């Protein structure tokens, strides 16, 4: 009996019609319903259920057209784990005779580089799959090609055929089964059978292999076709399309159904604008409207950017599985195992799931501990002998404890190399250990993004774990390739296992569980089999609908076409058919195209849009390239005025009574930033750099010199000895902070500092010879001085790097070490020149040192200045500031002013932003073009309030 074909009315959605038809048939508990996709299947079931009063006993079985083949093969052996097959293909590639291999891969990687080989195997595997879907093996291509004129690729296809032969042979030898081969063989051996009934529901896109199989069981098939009977000759027995007809038959999308705008977000805005009008005219519910996106990336964007309209939408997919918690955790472990570097450790510690696990063992610790440590000690690796890791008295340093826990996990689960099943066990154990503390419930929305990836991982691990007899003999010699010489690496490492797992997981879509009712956002391929009567399609552009022409190194499109495989024409035909069916079956349809994509690159109109009748083509083209400009509403709401203003300091309750001398500069620069830094105590933690930051470099230099100042070397006048001394102290200090094996950059920086210090030694020796002697007790000691302003007490605090007294004259020299790269003169850092030649104080440090050291001064003579230690060696030495006493008093008066203002709580308005980044840019709206306006506005408001 030939297949029965039933034509469904395409003025209504396909599923709707299919459900209707199915319910009219006598109950068939042995009926297998075949649908284009699983979502369509679920939806069909819902329709059947609703229409049969809410329940079905013995509901029909469902499958997708893609997995139908396997249901039709009698005696299908259990197919082998895909990863094993992939590894066998790699083995086959490696064993391929050179004359063939050279044709395919002129520069083959070294045998040990498994990942590189896997990389090569990927396109080959894809090609095998593509061929198999057409029921072909590489050898068949060879044969067919002999009839093609100008076929230049014979040599390559010979090589591919040889490779496939070798691969099949290896499979046979090891009793492994590849689904492609099974299918093709079953077909050839006529092992196709089915006992029940098959109903194909709108399966317009069937691969040749499946068609061939269906032909052998055609008497039990019924095909539901979503098209009018009048087109029957353009469909095959099983609903497959006549590509020639469908890819070129004109199709007109009426102008009023087309909208063209610029950016992706404009597409959304245009959709919303239209929907607004439409929803006012028609009663819509979440069930009667669907949004379709040609580019899946638009799904989440649309979902988020329609929230403000009050529209509840849901993109049907979860986050990409490779980015999910469990997979990224494995990835982070992988990275850390590979490099063993503390930067990778810090990434791993940031993983929220990892952190949860660690919390149970070390409460209150988090990754910032490591970040901070790295910032201070710049260590590549965290180990007990790393510097600065002596713990609290009663135990280990929490960071060591953390590192220990991680290293134990690695040691326990990931360190050994081994077979796939070994890794299945290890990875499963690792994940179990980390995730066990979580209570997971599939009904809880937040848990699904953990449960789904874990189950996917588990299902792959299970295929790895299934003992395959053949693997025993395959693995040791071949898999990681080091067949000769090497001692251990005959096994897979975690890196390999991780990569293999990622390969398997890639492109596994995770459906988002259905929750609150919402308008669904679906991808293009789902739209035909959706049954909401109203539809918007976004990103109706070439490259999305239809998709890009694939570039394949083996099977160019025209070859695919010749071989009857899926090709551009067949995809165009399918998309065109679906579009026509959609056009007929929807009550309301709008098709939106954009001119640029998310990366702001130009896009082209969909060819489907241009398949119209000849006379309509030119207007349609112009509609796209010269669209009329729509007045679109913003996607997000806004206020007249932004509430995100620079936070104004509240009136201070406890005015400052003391202040560090260095803080004055900050106030003079900007009172507001002063407030942030000295009252709110805001300071950005220094990021980890693999070298000493300028402040760290400065501190190191300071520390050496502080050591010196407190040592009995201060009287040394022998520059070589001094130099030697500095050198030793430098090494000591370096080691205590940066360990015995500092990062290479630090070692270089240490040498640079050593060089500066050795020049400084000459200077120091000379200065001592000249009679200047360090006042040792004052070295780096904290000075405080009472500095009453307006008869109210105030204290200045400061730390003077160094004070020398001249042994003969009693003169005092106050110095500040400057290690910054450029050696600026004191006056240049303290005062700026105005247009009229006068100068303004911008820093008061040195003048206030004068005040601070007042107790030391007994004959009025004080030299203030910098001790330059910058990169220019010829500038190293003392640089005095030649201010007159008047100038110094002027500076002091400014300090008093500052104190008055601080007492009065004047921290507003902010000044112009500084030229360098100080971490406060965000708070101070530095980058905001309207900042000045904003500040003025706030000033005005303030006055209004007052």
């Amino acid at each position, binding site marked *: 009996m030939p297949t029965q074909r039933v034509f469904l009315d395409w003025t209504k959605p396909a599923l709707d019609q299919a459900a209707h038809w199915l319910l009219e048939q006598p109950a068939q508990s042995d009926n297998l319903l075949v649908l284009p996709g699983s979502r369509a299947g679920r*939806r069909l079931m819902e329709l059947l*259920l*609703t229409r049969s009063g809410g*329940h*079905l*006993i013995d*509901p029909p079985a469902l499958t997708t057209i893609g997995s139908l083949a396997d249901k039709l093969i009698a005696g299908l052996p259990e197919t082998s784990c895909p990863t094993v097959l992939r590894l066998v293909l790699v083995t086959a590639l490696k064993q391929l005779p050179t004359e063939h291999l050279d044709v395919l891969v002129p520069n083959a990687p070294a045998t040990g580089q498994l990942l590189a080989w896997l*990389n090569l195997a990927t396109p080959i595997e894809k090609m095998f799959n593509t061929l198999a879907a057409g029921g072909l093996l590489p050898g068949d291509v060879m044969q067919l090609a002999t009839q093609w004129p100008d076929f*230049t*690729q014979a040599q390559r296809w010979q090589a591919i055929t040889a490779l496939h032969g070798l691969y099949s042979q290896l499979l046979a030898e090891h009793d492994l089964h590849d689904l492609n081969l099974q299918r093709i063989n079953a077909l050839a051996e006529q092992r196709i059978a089915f006992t029940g009934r098959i109903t194909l529901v709108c399966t317009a896109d069937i691969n040749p292999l499946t068609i061939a199989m269906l032909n052998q069981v055609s008497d039990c098939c019924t095909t539901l076709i979503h098209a009018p009977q009048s087109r029957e000759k353009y469909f095959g027995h099983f609903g497959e399309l006549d590509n020639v007809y469908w890819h070129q038959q004109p199709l007109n999308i009426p102008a009023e159904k087309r909208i063209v705008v610029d950016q992706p977000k404009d597409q959304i805005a245009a959709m919303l604008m239209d*929907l607004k009008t439409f*929803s006012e005219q028609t009663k819509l*519910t*979440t*069930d009667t409207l669907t949004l379709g996106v040609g580019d899946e*990336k638009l799904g*989440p964007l649309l979902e988020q950017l329609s929230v*403000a309209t009050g529209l509840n939408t849901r993109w049907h997919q979860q986050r990409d599985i490779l*980015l999910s*918690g469990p997979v990224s955790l494995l990835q982070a472990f992988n990275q850390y195992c590979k490099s063993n570097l503390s930067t990778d450790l810090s990434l*791993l510690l940031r993983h929220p799931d990892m952190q949860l696990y660690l919390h149970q063992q070390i409460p209150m610790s988090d990754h910032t501990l490591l970040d901070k440590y790295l910032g201070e000690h710049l260590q590549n690796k965290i180990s007990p002998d790393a510097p600065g890791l002596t713990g609290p008295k009663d135990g280990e340093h929490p960071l060591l404890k953390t590192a220990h826990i991680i290293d134990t996990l690695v040691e326990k689960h990931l360190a050994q190399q081994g077979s796939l099943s070994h890794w299945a066990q290890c990875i499963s154990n690792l994940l179990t250990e980390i995730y066990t503390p*979580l209570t*997971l*419930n599939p009904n809880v929305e*937040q848990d699904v993004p953990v449960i789904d990836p874990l189950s996917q991982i588990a299902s792959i*691990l299970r295929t790895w*774990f299934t003992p395959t007899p053949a693997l025993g003999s395959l693995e040791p010699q071949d898999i990681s390739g080091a067949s000769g010489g090497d001692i251990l690496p005959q096994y897979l490492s975690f890196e390999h296992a991780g990569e293999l797992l990622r390969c398997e997981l890639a492109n596994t879509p995770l459906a988002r569980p259905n929750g609150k*009712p*919402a308008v669904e956002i679906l991808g293009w391929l789902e739209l035909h089999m959706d049954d909401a009567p109203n539809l918007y399609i976004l990103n109706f552009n*070439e490259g999305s609908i239809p998709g890009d*022409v694939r*570039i394949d190194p083996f099977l*160019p*499109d025209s*070859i695919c076409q010749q071989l009857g495989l899926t090709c551009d024409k067949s995809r165009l035909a399918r998309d065109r058919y679906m579009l026509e069916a959609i056009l007929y079956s929807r009550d309301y349809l709008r098709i939106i195209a954009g001119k640029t994509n998310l990366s*702001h690159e130009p896009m082209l109109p969909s060819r489907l849009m*241009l398949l119209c009748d000849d006379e309509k*083509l030119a207007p349609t*083209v112009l509609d796209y390239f010269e669209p009329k400009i729509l*007045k679109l509403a*913003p996607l*997000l709401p*806004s206020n007249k005025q932004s*509430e995100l203003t620079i936070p104004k300091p509240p009136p201070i309750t406890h005015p400052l009574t003391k202040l560090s001398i260095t803080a004055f500069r900050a106030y003079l620069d900007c009172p507001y930033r002063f407030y942030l830094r000295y009252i709110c105590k*805001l300071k950005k*933690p220094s990021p980890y750099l*693999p*070298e000493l930051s300028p402040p760290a470099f400065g501190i190191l230099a300071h520390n050496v010199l502080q050591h010196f100042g407190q040592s009995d070397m201060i009287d040394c006048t022998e520059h070589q000895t001094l130099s030697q001394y500095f050198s030793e102290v430098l090494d000591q200090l370096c080691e205590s902070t940066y360990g015995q094996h500092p990062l*290479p950059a630090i070692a270089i920086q240490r040498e*640079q*500092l050593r060089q500066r210090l050795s020049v400084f030694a000459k200077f120091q020796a000379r200065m001592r010879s000249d009679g200047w002697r360090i006042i040792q007790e004052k070295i780096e000691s904290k000075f405080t001085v009472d500095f009453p302003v307006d008869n109210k007490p105030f204290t200045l605090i400061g730390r003077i790097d160094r004070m020398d007294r001249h042994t003969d004259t009693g003169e005092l020299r106050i110095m500040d070490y400057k*290690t910054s790269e450029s050696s600026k003169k004191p006056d240049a850092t303290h005062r700026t020149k105005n*247009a009229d030649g006068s100068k303004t104080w911008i820093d008061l440090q040195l003048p206030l040192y004068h005040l601070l050291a007042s107790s030391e001064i007994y004959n009025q003579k004080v030299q203030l200045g910098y001790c330059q230690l910058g*990169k220019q*060696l010829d500038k190293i030495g003392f640089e005095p500031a030649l201010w007159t006493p008047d100038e110094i008093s002027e500076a002091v008066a400014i300090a008093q002013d500052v104190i008055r203002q601080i007492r009065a709580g004047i921290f507003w308005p902010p000044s112009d932003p500084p030229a360098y980044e100080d971490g406060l840019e965000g*708070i101070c709206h530095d*980058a905001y*073009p*309207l900042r*000045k306006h904003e500040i003025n506005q706030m000033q005005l408001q303030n006055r209004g309030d007052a």
Partner: protein
Amino acid sequence: MSDLPDLPHLIIRASAGTGKTYQLTNRYMDLIHHGANPQTILATTFTRKAAYEILERVITLAAQSALEKPSERFFLKQLTTHLHKLMISTLDSLFQKMGRCFALELQLPANAQILDSTDFAMQQLQMQAMDQVLCNNPPKVLLDLMRRLYHSDASSRVFDVLQTVVTDLYHIYKQAPNESQWANYNTDGLLTGDLLKQALDVHQALKDELPRTKTGKIAVNALKAWNSDLRFIADDQWQLFLSKGIAKKVSEGATQFGTAELSDNTLRVYKLLVIHAKAWLLNRELTLNLARFELAKQYSSVFDQLRQDARILMHSDVPERLEQAFSDPESDFLPDLAYRMDQKIDHMMLDEFQDTSMQQWKILMPQAEEICAHVDEFASRRFLCVGDVKQAIYGWRGGCAEIFSHIGQDLNLPPEATVPLNESYRSSQVVLDVINYIFNGIDHNEGLGKDQLVTWATQWKERFDNHKAARELPGYVHFQALGGDQFVPNEDDMDETSNAHTIEVCDQIAVIHQNAPGYSIGVLVWTNKQVSELLTRLRWIGIDVASEGGVYLHDDPSVSCILAAMQMADRPDDPTSAFEVLNSPLGKYLGMTSYHHDDIRSIAWEIRQQLSSIGYPRLIGHWANLLAQHSDARGSERLSLLVQLAVTYEPNANLKPSDFASYVRSKQVPLSQQSPVQVMTIHKSKGLEFDTVILPSLKRKLGALQQQTTYVTRPSPIDPIEYVYASGFENLRNQCPELEEAHNQEWERRFSDDLCGFYVALTRAKYALYLFTAPLRLKKDGQLSTFGYTDSSAAAILRHTLIAPEDICVDEGQVLYTQGNPQWFETLPDPQITTPKPDKKTAPKQPYQIKIKSQTGKRSLPRIAPSQMEGRGNIRVSDLLALTQSTGQSRGTVIHRLFETLNWLGDQSAVPSRDELTALLDIEGLKYEAQYIDAFFQMIQMPAVIDALRKPADWDDNDCQLWREKNFAVLMDGRFVQGQIDRAQVWDDRVIIMDYKTDVPPQTGYESLVDHYRPQIQAYRKAVAVMRKLPLQKVTAKLIFVRDGVVCDVH
């Protein structure tokens, strides 16, 4: 089928604004009209934007003519049916496509990403690579290198230094991978070992031979010089040795020192030492250069490997490998190309040809040659290239204008194939006049200052023909000196724009903009640094400017706040970002009460957790919705663009939320409404035009070689690199012709590039051109300082072009030249032709409000299986991840299956035999052990089990149904429940459900197991009640614990 005789191969030398695109698109249409298949026409240009413009022009042209003449519809159809295969693209994307076709041969990783070198991920890799290079070398080697590169400085920055070195060298190394290419220093005459020792001994002994005074004493100056020389020699201070004293004289060819004659011996020794000193210095350069080579080599291998592993390619990778492959005589890539690309190139149209690099040309040339050599009776293949050597500004990127100069000969095309175009459709004659003055007089412009530059300028001028305006347009040119007292010319840093100058220029820009609002203004500068300075200043004075490529989103407080939250999630110990978030509406939403680490910790974790589960687009989208309500329209628009960025970022997301912030900070985003004022580099302005062009800073010396760490030489510009030199050899140049040559080659190339840049900048203007320079200054001696006067800067060139020589003087604040009408726009018909202002009246200010009824229980229902309800649905991770079914589970499955075979138990009911059972299990492929079947037989002996499975007294086979393993689906409480019932006895008015359980009871006994299963069984009861339309109490259920034969009723 083709017939193209009237369309010869063509080389168009088109000056700026003469309508290159027009030529190209017309030619394209001509080809199609002559029957060429669009998918065989390759048309390439340099930017995607330009490529798209060509395509857009071609198609709209075709559409317009189709609209007018139905007979033209065919051609439009031709284009649209092949839309996806049109080869109108950038060279880059053509090569990427070719590369993918040869992925295996070229070892291109599958699914590779191609990134810019400025891309965030790429920079991270660079950093990693440098780190590895550092680790691979003893610090000494690098320290040595740093010292050599930075002379006496003891800089504390390692990565900065290394980065400049390495990134510069990487590309050069790729083109000059042989050590010998880096070692071309002539060190002849270098004394070593004994020879050197001897020479020094002799020098030491020279004391007696030094010139003497009349009194017979050794002349003081000679002795002093000889003494210093001793020290210099001992310290290897050969530079000083050469530059002072006796050696200096001797090397200049003198035989006297002071007034005294030097002895022959002295002369001989000094000559030897002078040669040695030069050689020694060159040798030091050589060692340095070899160290650089080594560094580049290491870096390159590490970096390439890292990229390969991370599957990240640079734009240059594919063409590099293609070039290698194409130039390999063994490979037969070319014949394969058409097959692999599935497309044959019959016609070639190359735009912006002067920017083509040798590498690119080597890939294209074989095909171009094939096209030009192709002769059949229809002459069916065509070549066209369009370019302008005056606009060759990509020399630094490998662009080689000389290819364009020679292309006619290279392709054997007749001289008449080359056509010049000098009529500008863009600029007003007023603007063109100035351009004509400048470049016609460039060969004797005294502003160039150096003879060498004049020679090169003269060569450059040969490419220049007078420009004529094709249309009569109003125009204005304005040249003015601006900037106050603080202009301090700084030799070290020529690009440092002086503050006062920037401020005044920006004020001027504001005025110009206010004068003619709505007209586009292009502010063009040389460096990115200048762009950002001007952007900052212009924004500061309230002009919302954009730069090419759009705006940075983080400049808005609302976006900044979200980025701060990302930073906070990453570093909860960072009080600055926490403070920013805390003081924003987002802080309230996140429940923040302080900015202290301890309070942030858990919030930070939650954000990371959310990111991990729902991803960036959803979380950022959620926050954007939230913040927009508190933001103004500007912020709200930027927030919506931020969500778009989150979508593009997502695929590369990692565990560091702060990386998202860095990503956003690095990305420019085009706004829908572009600002009329744009600041950009001259390079970016290529291909664009503006109503007004402003050149705010003209002080860059054309041809300046600052910051150049490396010079390379080529035998001719179209040859590959021959030698590579380190550039720190100012003082050695006159000693060493190779170095001089290298320096000059670089200098000439740079000068020519810069002159082209200047030309490009000037020719972007349609109507008005504003040129601002810093004022001239007097030196202490009262002469004019060279800066802006004779220093080869654009300012100097302009002064000498537009001002009479005698009038050049100190000119602060002066308008130096004007021409045309400053109110040029008044004469234009429509004052807002370029950027129509949005019609603010009709565009809504708030999002639409859309009301759609939420409907429950109809579509896309939550799905659940009854078994998921047991134990309230919690699952154990260990179960989820279990690799095998535990024995318990597989035993359970088998026993379930066996029970399914049972019809009734007790009395005369038939029980399957052991053989039947094993056969069944075998067929179904269930794994079992014999003892399972034994257990089964025991179980069905147990009284409670028998009781439960006994046929009830009121059973009537006709009216009642016995369900075994019954599938069902049911809608329940808005959920879709699908499952299977083990067994049920179904009467018309009641049902008894039975569920087999194989569990071992816990210590608490079966009671607690019943509790555990209750939700599942209740679901069955409800489902059956619905299916049978019975009240719930009519559906009862039993749990049959087969292990111990315990049967429990479940209520």
